[in-house]
C-alpha cells in the first residue's frame, strides 16, 4: 500500500508538470495578447459607395418598429439589401464586455452597425474600435438632425456617431402613495425609507443627485462626484434606498413595492400601475441618446451608411418613434405624427420642448473615471 501511495504521488506530480508544460507552451504562444491598448490613434474611415449585399445590425430590443410593414422590411424593399437584425444588446457594459476581445483584434463579429449610448460610443472611439464616417456620405442625416443634437461634446462633428433615439432620466412617482415627490432630494426623505429605488448607472444617478445639490455634472470635479456618491452610499447603508436597479424598477412600481424610482421616460408600457407617472425633477433631468456606430472590421460599411441615411427621412423616423415612443433625433417628425392623429405628438416626453429640458444635462463622464467608477461600483456591490 505504501509503495502505491508514493508512486501515486509521484505520478500526480509528473502529470501536473506535463499539464503545466502544455498550457505554458500554449500560453506563451499567446503572450502579449492581453486586453486593452487600442490601436494607436489611427482611425479607419468607413467606405461609402454603392450599398448592396447583407447588413448585420445589432440593436437593443424593442427599439424599432417590427414586422412586414416595419422599417427594416421597408429598407430591404427599397434597397435590396438583406438585413440581419439582431436584438442582442441589453446593457452597454456587457455588450462591450463581450465584444471587446474581438474589437481589440479589429473584428466586429460580422456586425456592420450597432447602437450604443453616448458614453459608450465615446469610449469605443477612444479605444480605436469605431470607424469614422465622411460627412458627405450622410446627406440626409445632417439635413434632418435636430439642431440640439448636431454637435454634442463627445463627438462635436458627428464623425463616428449618429443618434438613433433618445430619452430622459427622471423620477417615476406612484401618485396614489407619494404625490408630493418632485425633486431627487425628496427621495432621501426618511418617510419613504425602503420605498425608493435608484438606477445603477454612474452617469445618471449621481448626476441627478448633483443637480439636486446645485452642482453642474458637466463641470463637476472628481471630488464633487465622490461627494454625491457618498451621499447615496449613506442612504443605501441606512436602508433608505431599497435597491439599485436596471429597468426592473418597473416591476417594483407595478407591484406597489415602492413609491418612487429614478427611471426612464419611455418605460410607460412596462408599468401596469395607473397611478404611476414620470416626472421631470425640479432641478433637471439627464438627457441621453443612443447612437448608431460602425465598428472596425465591419463587412459592409456602405450598407450601414445607407441605413443611417434611410432612417433620417422624417416619414421613416416617424414610424419608428410612433412604435418606440422615445425621442426622435430627426426634425420634422412631430408634424407627421400630428397629421396621423397620434396622441404622441402632444406628449412632452416624446417631444420635449427646450423649455421643458432647460435644466437637463447630458450623460457626462466624470473626471478620473476609474477612481470614481470604482467608488460607485463599491456602493452597488456593498
Amino acid at each position: 500500500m505504501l509503495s502505491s501511495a508514493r508512486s501515486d504521488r509521484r505520478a500526480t506530480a509528473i502529470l501536473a508538470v506535463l499539464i503545466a508544460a502544455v498550457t505554458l507552451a500554449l500560453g506563451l504562444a499567446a503572450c502579449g495578447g492581453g486586453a486593452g491598448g487600442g490601436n494607436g490613434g489611427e482611425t479607419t474611415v468607413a467606405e461609402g459607395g454603392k450599398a448592396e449585399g447583407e447588413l448585420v445590425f445589432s440593436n437593443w430590443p424593442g427599439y424599432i418598429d417590427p414586422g412586414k410593414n416595419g422599417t427594416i422590411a421597408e429598407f430591404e424593399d427599397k434597397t435590396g439589401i438583406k438585413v440581419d437584425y439582431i436584438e442582442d444588446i441589453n446593457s452597454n457594459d456587457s455588450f462591450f464586455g463581450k465584444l471587446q476581445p474581438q474589437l481589440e483584434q479589429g473584428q466586429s463579429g460580422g456586425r456592420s452597425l450597432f447602437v450604443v449610448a453616448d458614453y459608450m460610443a465615446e469610449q469605443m472611439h477612444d479605444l480605436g474600435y469605431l470607424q469614422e464616417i465622411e460627412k458627405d456620405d450622410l446627406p440626409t442625416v445632417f439635413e434632418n438632425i435636430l439642431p440640439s443634437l448636431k454637435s454634442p461634446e463627445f463627438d462635436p462633428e458627428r464623425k463616428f456617431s449618429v443618434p438613433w433615439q433618445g430619452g430622459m432620466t427622471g423620477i417615476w412617482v406612484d401618485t396614489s402613495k407619494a404625490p408630493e415627490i418632485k425633486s431627487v432630494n425628496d427621495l432621501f426623505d426618511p418617510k419613504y425609507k425602503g420605498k425608493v429605488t435608484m438606477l445603477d448607472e454612474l452617469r445618471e444617478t449621481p448626476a441627478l443627485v448633483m443637480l439636486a445639490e446645485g452642482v453642474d455634472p458637466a463641470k463637476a470635479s472628481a471630488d464633487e462626484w465622490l461627494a454625491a456618491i457618498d451621499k447615496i452610499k449613506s442612504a443605501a447603508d441606512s436602508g433608505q434606498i431599497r435597491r439599485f436597479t436596471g429597468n426592473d424598477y418597473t416591476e417594483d412600481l407595478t407591484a406597489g413595492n415602492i413609491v418612487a424610482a429614478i427611471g426612464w421616460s419611455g418605460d410607460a408600457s412596462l408599468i401596469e400601475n395607473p397611478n404611476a407617472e414620470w416626472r421631470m425633477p425640479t432641478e433637471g433631468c439627464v438627457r441621453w441618446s443612443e447612437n448608431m456606430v460602425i465598428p472596425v472590421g465591419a463587412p459592409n460599411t456602405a450598407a450601414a451608411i445607407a441605413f443611417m441615411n434611410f432612417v433620417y427621412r422624417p416619414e421613416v423616423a416617424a414610424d419608428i418613434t410612433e412604435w418606440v415612443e422615445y425621442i426622435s433625433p430627426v426634425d420634422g417628425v412631430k408634424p407627421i405624427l400630428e397629421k396621423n392623429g397620434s396622441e404622441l405628438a402632444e406628449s412632452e416626453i416624446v417631444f420635449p420642448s427646450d423649455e421643458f429640458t432647460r435644466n437637463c444635462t447630458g450623460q457626462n463622464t466624470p473626471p478620473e473615471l476609474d477612481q470614481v467608477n470604482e467608488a460607485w461600483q463599491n456602493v452597488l456591490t456593498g
Partner: protein
Amino acid sequence: MRSWKQRLVPYWLLGPGLLWLLFFFVVPMYFMGELALYSGSLTSGGFEFTWAWSNFPDALSGHTEQVVRSFFYAGTATVLCLLIGYPLAYAIAFRAGRYKTLLLFAVIAPFFTTYLIRTIAWKTILSDDSPVVSVLQTLSLTPEGGRVLATSGAVIAGLTYNFLPFMILPLYANLERLDMRLIEAAKDLYSSSRSAFLKVTLPLTMPGIVAGVLLTFIPAFGDYVNAQLLGGTGQAMIGNVIQSLYLNQRNYPEAAALSFLMMALILAIVIVYIRFAGTEAFMGDEDEEGA
C-alpha cells in the same frame, strides 16, 4: 495480473473528458491567471504584464465582507436544500414506484422556464402587498421593514429554490441503489426508525449527501443573479463583485485575481469538508481498498 490493455482502460475512459477540460478550461484559465498579474487600465494606455502580485491581496482586502456574506448565504441555502431535498429524494426513490421519472422531471422542469421568468414569478408572489407576505407578517417571520424582497432572506430563498435540483438529483442517484432489506434489517435491530435512519441509512447515503452538498454549495457561492434580482442594498455576493469588476469597471486584472482567490477558497473548503465527511464518500477509492 492485468494485461497492458487492461491498464490502459482508465486512460481511454478519462481521455475525452480530460482533454476537453484541458483545452477548454485549463488553457483559458491560464490566460486568466496571466491576466491577474497585469496592471493598468483600459482607458489609460492598456494593460501590461508586470508580475503584479499585489492584485491578489488588494482584491481580497476590498471585499472580505462580500466573501463572508457569500459563505453565509450559500451555506444556509445548502442546508435548506438538504433539509428539503433529502426527504423528497427519499420519497421519489422508494415510494414513487412507477412515477419516479415523472417526479424527477417535475424537479428540473422549472429550469425550462429560464431563470429570469422564475424569479419574476417569485417576486410577484413575494411582493410587499401580496397575501403570502401578509401571512408572514402576522407570523412575525419577515426580517426587516415588514418586507421579504430586497432582504437577505429573499436571496437565500432564491438560492435555495434554484439549487434544489442540484441537491436532489445526486441524492436520488445514490439513494435509489440502497437495498431496502438493509433498512428493514436495521429496523429489526434498532427499536426506533430514527436510530435505524441515523445508524444505517444516513451513513450509507453519505456519498450522495457529499455530492449534493458540493454541487449546491460550490456554484451557489459564486452566484450573482439571485443577489442582483432579489436582493437590495447590502446583499451583494462575491459573484456580483467579480461581475462588476469585469463588466462595469473593466478592471480585468483585479477580476481575474479575485476569481482565483475565490476558487482557491472554495477548494480549501471542499478539501476540509471531504476530510470531515470521509474521503471514501467522495472519491470512493475502492480499488485501493481491495474490497
